[in-house]
């Protein structure tokens, strides 16, 4: 296509080109028009596709279309929100994320969004150097809390994550702060006030015998890992270990780390459930937040949902109580993160009543619970990755 000075007006130029029969538009002309058409197609696809409130794979709320106002324009927050909105509601976002991590992986990148993709497809969250100030606050809060409740026996199960137990599964030379040193340091700091439940040597033994202690696509321990920890806890907390039967309930579980990182390669995980062999044991789970009660700790319907890990207790809630027909008059207070969700079913048959507090969602003071009743045992259960970054625990213990 010949180019003319614009002064001669676009119309006349068009007529001239049309008047020349057989003159085909050049490659770049076609290219340019097609390029713009592609951009427009994406534009309309974005506008036309319905907005999602929640990302199923990433497990988080997504940005909604921002509202226009004088203030949001002046301080630029409208523009920032609009940029975020355009990215989070982008058509095919999940696929694009996988494309990006896949492309980068092929080029040698073993890390995405703070998640390592290690050997044999193991995903692991990076363990960053813990904040010393937060460490002191948390350790002191736990110690003081235990000292305030001398009639209860306090234990702390600080679970290692996969990087501490199986560092050989991380990418070669991956940079991780020393999680084992962190766990040692924490146990040393609370010793005397709370009994440490250190599962690491048990885990190393179980690992050597071929037990998969951690999911490959999720940051949690497997139910088998939780069971190994349960055996260790029973000896520290002085209750007899009960017997269970194991069954696999799902074998296509893709967990939080796959979602967070976009690393999808490799096989899915399976989820196992342990059932107490004492069939006469009856349970009553009460969600103190929603008021819902039920006779099981499991939400089977969650297996088909976006987050199959919600199989255990239906997710994380501020406060739960588990009452059982267990042949025991002991009560237990558990202060925990989500590692406890697959662990607590083991305890249900050993306690008359278990109260479960998740400080990340609990906004009151735990001490107030002792006004109503006393607990024979107190168990803190956290994984090192969460505790090292958690600023909610010391707050609810104040």
């Amino acid at each position, binding site marked *: 296509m010949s*180019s003319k000075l614009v002064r001669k007006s676009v119309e006349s130029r068009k007529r001239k080109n049309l008047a020349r029969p057989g003159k085909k538009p050049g490659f770049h002309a076609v*290219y*340019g028009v097609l390029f713009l058409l592609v951009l427009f197609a994406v534009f309309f696809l974005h506008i036309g596709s319905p907005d999602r409130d929640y990302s199923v794979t990433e497990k988080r709320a997504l940005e909604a279309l921002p509202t226009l106002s004088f203030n949001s324009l002046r301080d630029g927050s409208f523009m920032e929100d609009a940029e975020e909105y355009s990215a989070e509601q982008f058509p095919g976002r999940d696929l694009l994320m996988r494309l*990006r991590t896949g492309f980068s992986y092929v080029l040698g990148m073993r890390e995405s969004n703070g998640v390592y993709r290690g050997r044999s497809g193991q995903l692991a969250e990076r363990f960053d150097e813990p904040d010393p100030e937060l460490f002191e606050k948390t350790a002191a809060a736990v110690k003081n809390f235990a000292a305030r409740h001398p009639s209860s026996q306090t234990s702390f199960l600080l679970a290692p994550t996969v990087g501490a137990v199986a560092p050989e599964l991380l990418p070669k030379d991956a940079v991780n702060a020393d999680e084992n040193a962190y766990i040692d340091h924490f146990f040393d700091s609370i010793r005397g006030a709370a009994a440490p439940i250190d599962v690491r040597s048990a885990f190393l033994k179980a690992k050597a015998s071929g037990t998969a202690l951690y999911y490959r696509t999720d940051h949690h321990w497997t139910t088998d890992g939780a069971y190994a920890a349960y055996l260790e806890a029973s000896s520290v907390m002085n209750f007899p270990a009960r017997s269970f039967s194991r069954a696999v309930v799902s074998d296509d579980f893709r967990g939080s780390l796959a979602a967070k990182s976009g690393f999808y390669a490799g096989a899915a995980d399976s989820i196992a459930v342990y059932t107490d062999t004492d069939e006469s044991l009856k349970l009553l789970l009460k969600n103190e937040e929603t008021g819902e009660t039920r006779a099981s700790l499991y939400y089977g319907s969650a297996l088909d949902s976006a987050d199959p890990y919600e199989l255990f207790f239906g997710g994380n809630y501020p406060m739960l109580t588990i009452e059982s027909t267990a042949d025991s008059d002991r009560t237990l207070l558990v202060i925990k993160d989500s590692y406890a969700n697959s662990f607590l079913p083991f305890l249900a048959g050993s306690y008359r009543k278990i109260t479960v507090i998740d400080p990340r969602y609990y906004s009151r003071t735990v001490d107030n619970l002792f006004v109503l009743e006393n607990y024979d045992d107190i168990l803190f259960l956290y994984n090192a990755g969460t505790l090292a970054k958690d600023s909610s625990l010391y707050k609810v213990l104040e």
Partner: protein
Amino acid sequence: MVFSSLIFLYAFLPLSMLLYFVVPEIRVKNLVLLMFSLLFYAWGEPVYIFLMLFSILVNYLLGRLMEDEPAKKKHTLVFAVFINLLTLGFFKYYGFAVSGINALFRLQLPVRELPLPIGISFYTFQALSYLIDLYRGKYRAQKNLLSFALYISMYFQLIAGPIVRYKEVERQLTERRLSAENLGKGLARFVLGLGKKVLIANVLGALFDRVSGMGGTLTTASAWLGIAAYTLQIYFDFSAYSDMAIGLGKACGFDFPENFNQPYLSKSVTEFWRRWHISLGSWFREYVYIPLGGNRVKPWRHVLNILIVWALTGLWHGADISFVLWGLYYALLLIFEKYVLKKPLPGPLKYIYTLLAVMLGWALFSAGNLTEGLRMLSSMCGFAPGGLADTEALYLLRSYGAWLLAGTVLVLPLGMKLRDRLLSKSRFALAAASLVILLLSTAFLVTENYNPFLYFRF
């Protein structure tokens, strides 16, 4: 707004191009372009847009005044330079100047840090070039406010250059070649720039950020990796902005001057600065260096001229003493090459020397302050807090090695050949490459929150 954003790519760009090509006449097209340019700027600077509009109006009126009152031409120019530098100085250097005065005279004047209006250094320099060349009688004053506003604010080069001089686009403001052919060629140039920025510069930028964030664990090996990454990042970022600006300009019928010409293949530092950010170098040459007498003066005066120009060039890049020192560092190198070295070093030595000099410069430049810059430099010289090397450096090399390699290959003549082939000969390769770049860039922009704008201090 920046080019490497989803809103620009999938809303602003197609809508502005559509409207621009649909409306009939050049004046209306100019109006469309101006409106979109103001929107583009206001998107990132909703308040400072008024500063830019003020600057446009004042410089337009000063231009008219200069022409209408030829007797007072000189006074008008002095006033114009003064008012432009005052505005630039107030918004960019006020905090720096006050803390400098405080340090010098041991005072405690309150330091007020204003957020720097994006692109102010670029558009102020464009306005100055317009007025100075008008004073020199190179052209008549622009009587059409719309055309003048468009010259200053055209969104292509508004926030990251090139610095277009008025004489380069004077005619194009009213007469320019518009064709679907140019649209395609311009967009092709744009998409290659987009790939450079999003797929290479941003990734290497993440490596540099990680290295510069290392405290006690920084090793000499990591420091070199980080600075190598930065060396490639700033080239692929900055030249990509120019590619995108020139490409978009071409799509709309403008011919902007080239801003980068394979700078890392220079045989001397002098040559490097003729190939790096060409429009800035020639601006300082034309409006500062030559008026000072250039090299047609006694050697001591020539040396002084070089020192002045490079202190100012350094300062232009950011209001901090480290940028001034970075400029003076180049002044010394240029003086060394002119008076001591005289001709390029033999063999491959000349390339190694130039690249090394430039990388050490970036170590100071990238830190943004003297303490950090010196820490990085001493780490590179073997005095790193973490020792010579550790496994982290190995890990980073494995993670980013492909990008470092790709970046290095692309700055070599091979990369240039590839680009030229794509842009002119291999049609289907261009179409395929464009689609792949667009898809991958989108994937990176959708999920990667690391998308820095390096020129916020310019």
